């Protein structure tokens, strides 16, 4: 069964303390992997799309990487405003997205 698993479920970091979030998937024939950020009371906000193993994309303090089995979202020197839930998703069948349960990140000053 196609599945997306994110870890850890929750992560507390001190401001400036770098870390990584993991997204592993079992979808066969990967056709892209999406990262979204979701703030409380808001809809998911698009961050990145990765299409092939070895691909990397960066945006401010965030860098997303992709292997054949998983993706990492690296957060370098995070700030309190980076606090949010980070969701990853992969398409299956046609363009339906299956989402992970997310990692809830809290960054303290």
């Amino acid at each position, binding site marked *: 069964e196609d599945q*997306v698993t994110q870890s850890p479920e929750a992560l507390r970091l001190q401001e400036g303390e770098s870390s990584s979030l993991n997204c592993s998937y079992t979808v066969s024939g990967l*056709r*892209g992997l*999406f990262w*979204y950020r979701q703030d409380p*009371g*808001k*809809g*998911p*906000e*698009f961050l990145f*799309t990765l*299409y092939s193993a070895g691909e990397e994309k960066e945006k401010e303090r965030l860098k997303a990487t992709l292997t054949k089995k998983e993706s990492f979202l690296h957060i370098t020197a995070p700030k309190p405003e980076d606090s949010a839930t980070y*969701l990853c*998703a992969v*398409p299956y*069948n*046609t*363009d*339906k*997205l299956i*989402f*992970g*349960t*997310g990692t809830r990140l809290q960054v303290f000053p």
Partner: protein
Amino acid sequence: EAGVAQSPRYKIIEKRQSVAFWCNPISGHATLYWYQQILGQGPKLLIQFQNNGVVDDSQLPKDRFSAERLKGVDSTLKIQPAKLEDSAVYLCASSDGTVGYSDTQYFGPGTRLTVL
């Protein structure tokens, strides 16, 4: 460019009542999605439209949920009658539908439904 609009933002109803949600996608986007997000979970697709036709409604509880997208633009999702387990955030998303499986989906702010 205006984003995906949804209304209302919040709705509280009693079980067995009916409720409707409205979505206006990004201008020009052919594909529209409705998702249900239960607290602590990722969004789950309910229905997907391409223009005004249904592409996938396999996970829509059709005994109580219905959706339409008249004229290929705005969409309405209805629940009748509502159950306690329908309490969730209902998200609308749209994509331009030009590529297919790798289209980026852009989400609206969602409607938080509480069923008492």
